[in-house]
């Protein structure tokens, strides 16, 4: 029998607000343990939460971007359970009045090959709610240590409908969601820093049937590959269980990334009764039209919309747009450069090939740095969009060969010099100068009289040997058009 998996995801995204969800202390990653704390974070007697308005605003932004219905009023509830990662032993969350409901995430499945666009569809969202993050526990043999730096950071939980059916779809969903959230500027979504975390609800059923199978929740899917592998493993486990006639129990399982399998954490019977109730320390939040309109003005173009625009309005090839549109900073760079450059396609190619290569090399050196602001972005790299446009225009004007440009670009990237600076420095701009090229052409004719004779005798192809010699002598730096004209003139 053929089986179909039904998958829903709960994605947690840390919002990049300056201060925590309910207090003024700052947020951050990689700080010494328990330094980003205060009475509110530590749940000291008498401490009270005060809502972070920026977190609400960023949540509205996400909701609008994903086409959700923004609540007119959302409220705060306490989710009660005892665990040391949360000093109050309750988490402030949103239970029955979340900030966003509904919405969709557009996904693209892989095409036949990287140059071909894959199929697109919408994955339905159930809701998005805002809550406070918990602290981080590290377990040792004898005891456990807890770091409350993360505790109380604003955390957005994006819940999808059980609307995905394969690990590939899950991957596509996460990629698309991440691209949109990064483009909206609400989070860097770095999974390694825990800024984006994911739980999956998985069930399987015979293909063609519509009732849902028993749901299993998988936790600890904390890398993109972890999500793909974990989901893939769990689907196989459930199919195997059904085929073997074993009952699938409703439970929560943990993905073990090292051993690559899931193990039971708790069953339905062991599930917590969270005793949700409205947090009496906080007022409900009213979100009026004016607020929504103000946030709507700051919405970025959705990555897939941008991709379609590049293909349609700029005639860019699919492969270039797919490389560009996963990175909104790269897109911004590209748009700035292409405004000045004479060819959009060439600009796109330079950006996705040469610029991206140099950037990834530059960032490799800083791999172990914990400070994200040290990462070189297209905007902070030494080659400005103006510099790149200049380079492209020199090629287009025939003043620079593609080969020379390719050689110059890495140097522009490391030195920060413009292409015209480098041309001047290396004396490359002389090479379209007729005087020098004429001399070299004359030499070539003198050195290969055989080819010269053949050409004069009407053998058109013989000129290529002479051109090759000129190019060799100029190390490829002569303008081919000028060389061609000069040779023909000298031979006539």
């Amino acid at each position, binding site marked *: 029998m053929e089986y179909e998996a039904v998958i829903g995801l709960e994605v947690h995204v840390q919002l990049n607000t300056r201060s925590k969800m309910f207090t003024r202390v700052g947020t951050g990653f990689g700080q010494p343990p328990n330094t980003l704390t205060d*009475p509110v974070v*530590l*749940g*000291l*007697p*008498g*401490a*009270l*939460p*005060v*809502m972070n308005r920026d977190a609400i605003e960023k949540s509205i932004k996400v909701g609008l971007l994903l086409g959700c219905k923004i609540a007119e009023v959302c409220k705060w509830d*306490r989710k*009660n359970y*005892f665990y*040391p990662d949360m*000093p*109050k*032993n*309750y988490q402030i969350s949103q239970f029955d009045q979340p900030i966003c409901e509904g919405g969709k995430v557009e996904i693209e499945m892989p095409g036949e090959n990287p140059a071909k666009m894959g199929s697109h569809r919408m994955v339905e969202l159930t809701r998005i709610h805002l809550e406070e993050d918990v602290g981080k526990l590290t377990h040792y043999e004898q005891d456990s240590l807890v770091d409350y730096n993360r505790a109380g950071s604003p955390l957005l939980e994006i819940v999808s409908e059980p609307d995905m059916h394969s690990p590939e779809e899950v991957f596509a969903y996460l990629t698309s969601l991440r691209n949109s959230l990064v483009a909206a500027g609400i989070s860097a979504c770095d999974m390694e820093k825990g800024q984006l975390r994911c739980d999956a609800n998985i069930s399987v059923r015979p293909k063609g049937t519509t009732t849902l199978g028993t749901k299993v929740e998988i936790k600890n899917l904390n890398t993109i590959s972890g999500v793909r592998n974990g989901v893939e493993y769990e689907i196989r486990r459930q199919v195997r269980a059904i085929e073997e006639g074993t009952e699938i129990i409703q439970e929560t399982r943990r993905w073990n990334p090292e051993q690559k399998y899931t193990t039971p954490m708790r069953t339905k019977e062991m599930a917590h*009764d969270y*005793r*949700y*109730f409205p947090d*009496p*320390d*906080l*007022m409900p939040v009213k979100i009026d039209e004016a607020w929504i309109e103000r946030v709507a003005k700051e919405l970025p173009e959705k990555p897939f919309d941008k991709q379609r625009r590049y293909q349609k309005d700029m005639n860019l090839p699919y492969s270039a747009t797919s490389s560009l549109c996963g990175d909104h900073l790269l897109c911004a760079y590209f748009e700035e450069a292409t405004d000045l450059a004479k060819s959009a396609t060439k600009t796109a190619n330079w950006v996705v090939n040469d610029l991206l290569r140099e950037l990834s090399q530059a960032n490799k050196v800083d791999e172990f740095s914990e400070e994200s602001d040290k990462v070189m972005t297209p905007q902070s790299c030494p080659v400005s969009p103006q510099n790149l446009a200049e380079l492209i225009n020199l090629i287009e004007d025939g003043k620079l060969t593609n080969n020379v440009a390719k050689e110059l670009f890495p140097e522009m990237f490391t030195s920060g010099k413009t292409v015209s600076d480098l041309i001047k420095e290396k004396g490359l701009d002389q090479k379209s100068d007729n005087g020098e090229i004429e001399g070299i052409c004359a030499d070539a004719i003198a050195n290969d009289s055989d080819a010269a004779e053949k050409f004069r005798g009407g053998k058109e192809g013989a000129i290529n040997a002479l051109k090759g010699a000129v190019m060799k002598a100029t190390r490829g730096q002569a303008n081919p058009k000028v060389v061609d004209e000069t040779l023909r003139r000298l031979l006539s």
Partner: protein
Amino acid sequence: MSQDSPIFKTATELSADLTAGKISSVELTQAMIERVETVDEKVHAFLHLDKEDALAQAKASDERRSTGECLSPLDGIPVGLKDVISVKDQPLTAASKILENYRSPYDATVTVKLKQAGAVVAGRLNLDEFAMGSSTENSAYGPTRNPWDLERVPGGSSGGSSAAVAAREVPLSLGSDTGGSIRQPASLCGVVGMKPTYGMVSRYGLAAFASSLDQIGPFSTTVEDTALLLETISGHDPLDSTSFPKEIPSYSAELKKPAQAGVIGLPKEFFGPGMDDEVRAKVEQSIEHYRSLGYQTKEVSLPSTDLSIPVYYVIATAEASSNLARYDGIRYTSRSNRAQNAIDVYAKSRGEGFGAEVKRRCLLGAYGLSSGYYDAYYLRAQKARTLIRQDFERVFKEVDAVLTPTAPTPAFKFGEKSEDPISMYLSDIFTISTNLAGLPGISVPCGFTQSGLPVGMQLIGQAFEESSLLNIAHAYDRDHLYGRQAPNL
């Protein structure tokens, strides 16, 4: 002790004496410390008194004054705090064993305001553990005794705060009121105690019992002093989301203005059976006095009154079960040394650290919030709470204040009600609806029983109309000043 001693003076009088240079803050604070050393063995209002710290604050006040600077009328005057209000570097036990070794690393907003006003913040005052109780018998550190009769309770939960003022150990103190915890002990100890409108005084730094009901408020011997202390601690606080943005007038200045005699409502549900005869007689005398002052009185009805105790015990315990979850033996609370594993740390630390009443309320509250019971208990209680509030809203269309007894009986004996939680809960029957409706209420002493026990009456005002409420209370109080009578200790 001589009646001229500063300890028998009101804060208003002391403020004048300090200004006139008749006394220094150090002298006053020293007198207070001596009084505590003399009488607190009997009364046990204090859980802790940092004498050095109090004297240092007093010295600073005197130095300010010597350079011509005076921060407020309270500059140099000692104020005792119920041991649920945080003071930086001072203990905060909430009268619980579980917080035995905790010191607050920060000041509550009311503490900040008192310090900014120059008051000498001195003493941690006894209470029922986590403010849960009506007799101060639930303190893990032993009960406070009523200064008028040491065999009797001072009321609660702010029994230490009321007894300390009644015993003249401090001229002023702060308590917290969730269902009557300021007004009932004020009544039983013969002092003035006021619960402001919910949202008037910041709760930041108050160890929470029931967040939607808790409110900090003053104790003093006169309404005049209450006005002085209330205007110092009130006002919007950005650290408390339930604090109300409203300009605070000078209540003490308002008291000096001639006030128009208004209409006083007498809710019939509060004058039924079950009330002590002497209490009834004293309250009726006070009603008569208002009539003699030109006030009109009018019988009104608050029909949902009988819902208030059940509603209160569902809502308050639900919030408490969650608010007290943080006392878990993990970080700052005492950890059981019998704990073998993580679950043990919670279960045993809480089992050993909490007293019986706290456990009872946490269990009750958790039950009421449990899946399957939430709708029947918590949600219904919230709806009934709306009815109670609407009752008052209706009545306040016709009257300026509502007058009731504060407590059904004068101070009762130790052990009299502690075995029967329900009879204890009923001692808050007249005060609880005020908290559920979020309204201001004040207990003013209105005489003594034949055996010499104080009786208090309660005046309930409209939300955020503290000024009017204080004026009405003052109209009675200035003619009687029962709170100025001191017990023999």
